[in-house]
């Protein structure tokens, strides 16, 4: 088990050019980041290519990490997710939409940060629970699976403009519920 503190130290050493520390950081985090990228890209080979880009970027940007703002793993997950979404927005074939098993969204598997972030996780889940079921599912499909407005429009049989309106309402409601 690698603690949050360990990851910070490894990232700091990586910023100092310590390749072995960076390798340890990779081994401690790559399965988590790969899980994110694979879920969005749904293609193993493409996801492994993306994962390599992501770690090169993490190496280059290690100096950008600010402790106190987010944990190392959250910072890294954000880089990974951003990269995966950039790729999928350019490439995803529309045909893939139906292959997703929406039931997997019900999973509450908390593989990382579950201890440190339990309060935050509960708070967000509580606020998501305040959204209508389809809106909640929409937010999760977008965030977790990388669905676009057009893909959501097809899945929920609504015009894209309506999806945008629903997303904005849902996001505002979440923001208000989270109190920030």
């Amino acid at each position: 088990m690698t603690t949050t503190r360990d990851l910070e130290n490894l990232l700091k050493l990586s910023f100092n050019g310590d390749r072995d520390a960076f390798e340890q950081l990779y081994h401690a985090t790559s399965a988590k980041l790969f899980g994110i990228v694979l879920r969005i890209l749904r293609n193993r080979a493409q996801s492994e290519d993306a994962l390599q880009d992501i770690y090169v970027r993490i190496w280059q940007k290690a100096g950008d990490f600010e402790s106190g703002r987010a944990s190392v793993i959250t910072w890294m997950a954000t880089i990974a997710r951003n990269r995966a979404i950039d790729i999928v927005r350019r490439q995803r074939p529309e045909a893939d939409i139906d292959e997703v098993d929406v039931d997997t969204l019900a999973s509450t598997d908390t593989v990382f940060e579950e201890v440190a972030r339990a309060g935050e996780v509960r708070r967000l889940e509580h606020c998501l629970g305040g959204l209508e079921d389809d809106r909640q599912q929409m937010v999760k499909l977008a965030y977790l699976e990388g669905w676009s407005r057009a893909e959501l429009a097809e899945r929920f049989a609504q015009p894209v403009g309506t999806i945008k309106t629903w997303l904005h309402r849902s996001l505002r409601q979440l923001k208000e519920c989270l109190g920030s």
Partner: protein
Amino acid sequence: MTDHEDKDMLAAEYVLGTLDARQRDAVNARRGNEPDLEAAIIAWESRLSPLNTHYEAVAPSANLFANIRSRIDAEGIEIARTVPGIADFAALKRKLAIWRLGALGSAAIAAGLLITVFTSDPVLPVADGKFVAVFHRDDTQPAFVMSVDLDTREVTIRPVEATVPEGKTYQLWIVTDETGPQPQSLGLLENVANPTTKQLGQFDPAMLRKATFGISLEPAGGSPTGLPTGPAIHGHLIPVAH
């Protein structure tokens, strides 16, 4: 709807992931120049990132890190090959190592300062006191390359992919142990199309060697507060030896 609300929703959808490729590119380009947009993105990342707990870990292929490591090792060589002007002031060694120094003052970080620290490293040959700092923005393509000559106490900043947004300018900063945690301005990079050279005669070489350098984006004329106010580009160092 106000501009502020528009921007907040743009940030929200950016983080949610529902913008199309063109819109995402636009946000990626804007966030470095618009502190309020950047702040909104960070706030939405913080709000939504607890959803990351839904992602399950999946092990990638075992040999992947070797590729990552060789790409990291090749980075300095690649920069030397592709950045015009680098070879003019110093030849990068074939097997040069790239190293960065962290542990910046939190004040510098909080100020959004680009961070590059120079230090001694007994393992690396830094034969003649020459260093290169490479400043990446969001991509692998460097935005600025800075050379430092400790003998002459000159730094030269060469733009690579940097562009200046309307009404903005880049400003160079330094943080040293001796001058405290607050960044000191080294002046503006007046013409981003050409190299800028700054004489740092007021700093002794030992001080420079351990200094932190930064480049921030500021309003035209420079930071109004005397401290970095705008978004930063972060970099790392390459030691240079002939």
